[in-house]
């Protein structure tokens, strides 16, 4: 077991709100400079930049995790993480069928750029990616689990997409083993107000949409890493966050 600095919630230029400078290589390079060892790409309702992201992370010596920030039917944001690139892409296909088809207006919301391993733009997604899917919060954990992944509510304190402002409470009956706070200093306050959180893992990630929002390595998780491989480390990470502490 060793501590690994993580950032498990970041956006690339494929998210409309993600800066176009958030190319897979810039993201991986910047995170590497910041001391991040395990980095997840979690674009809104898509994993289509994960392939390039895996190649970029390999280049910069960072362990990549394929993921997605799923928007549930209730417009609650959920971080989904997968053990392999293939699993993330399979989940992408499953979600794609259940997205609300609202045309993206790049001039208002921003471009949605799909990139290759060299940061070349190889396509765009025409539909506004962060729009709600048909997948409810209650359904999400089982759907993600069927693809081998785990999920937990993102930035639970935030008015836009956070479970607590939207539902007024942390759902006690949905099987989450973790939750994400954008601001870790709020942990004691939230555990006090919502005691169910005391029994869960608290994850703090950057939710970076711009390169300058990638934070210096601060939060780490103890992960089983023997025999070492990035695949093994991803499995350890998912086990760690998929089970209550």
């Amino acid at each position, binding site marked *: 077991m060793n501590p690994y600095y993580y950032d498990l919630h970041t956006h690339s230029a494929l998210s409309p709100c993600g800066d176009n400078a958030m190319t897979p290589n810039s993201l991986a390079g910047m995170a590497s400079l910041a001391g991040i060892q395990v980095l997840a790409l979690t674009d809104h309702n898509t994993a289509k930049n994960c392939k390039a992201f895996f190649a970029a992370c390999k280049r910069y010596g960072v362990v990549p995790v394929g993921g997605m920030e799923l*928007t549930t039917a209730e*417009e609650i944001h959920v971080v989904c993480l997968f053990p392999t690139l293939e699993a993330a892409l399979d989940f992408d296909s499953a979600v794609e069928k259940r997205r*609300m088809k*609202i045309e993206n207006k790049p001039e*208002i*919301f921003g471009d949605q750029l799909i990139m290759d391993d060299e940061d070349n733009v190889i396509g765009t997604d025409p539909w506004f990616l962060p729009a*709600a899917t048909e997948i409810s919060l209650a359904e999400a954990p089982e759907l993600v689990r069927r693809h081998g992944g785990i999920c937990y509510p993102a930035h639970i304190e935030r*008015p*836009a997409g956070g479970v607590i402002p939207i539902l007024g409470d942390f759902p006690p009956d949905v099987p989450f083993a973790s939750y994400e706070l954008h601001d870790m200093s709020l942990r004691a306050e939230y555990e006090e107000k919502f005691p169910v959180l005391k029994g869960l893992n608290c994850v703090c990630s950057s939710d970076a949409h711009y390169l300058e929002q990638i934070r210096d390595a601060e939060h780490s998780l103890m992960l089983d890493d023997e025999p070492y491989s990035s695949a093994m480390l991803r499995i350890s990470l998912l086990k760690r966050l998929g089970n209550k502490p």
Partner: protein
Amino acid sequence: MTAGELAQELSLNILCLPHPEREVTGGFAGDLLSWVMGGAKEGDAWVTIMSNLNVVAVASLCDTACVVLASDTVLDEKDLKTAEEKEINVLNSPLPEFELCVKIGELLK
């Protein structure tokens, strides 16, 4: 009826009103971004309790005549500045959504 007249008739608070002359031709109520994006039409008075930057983006996308924030909801200073830049009319009222919709509906008859 214009957005400015609507504000006056219903004693709405003006948070940002760069285009008081905008004609209000209909109404829409909704608090989930995606539903509003799929349903609100150009010229609508959009009644909502949503209170983040998405309000500005969606109002801009749908080209609504004005946003009416119900139940004393407000936008923070940063988001209001964006509303000004994007020339979005933003009003608010202590009335809850249903009552606001009823009153707007009467005015649009």
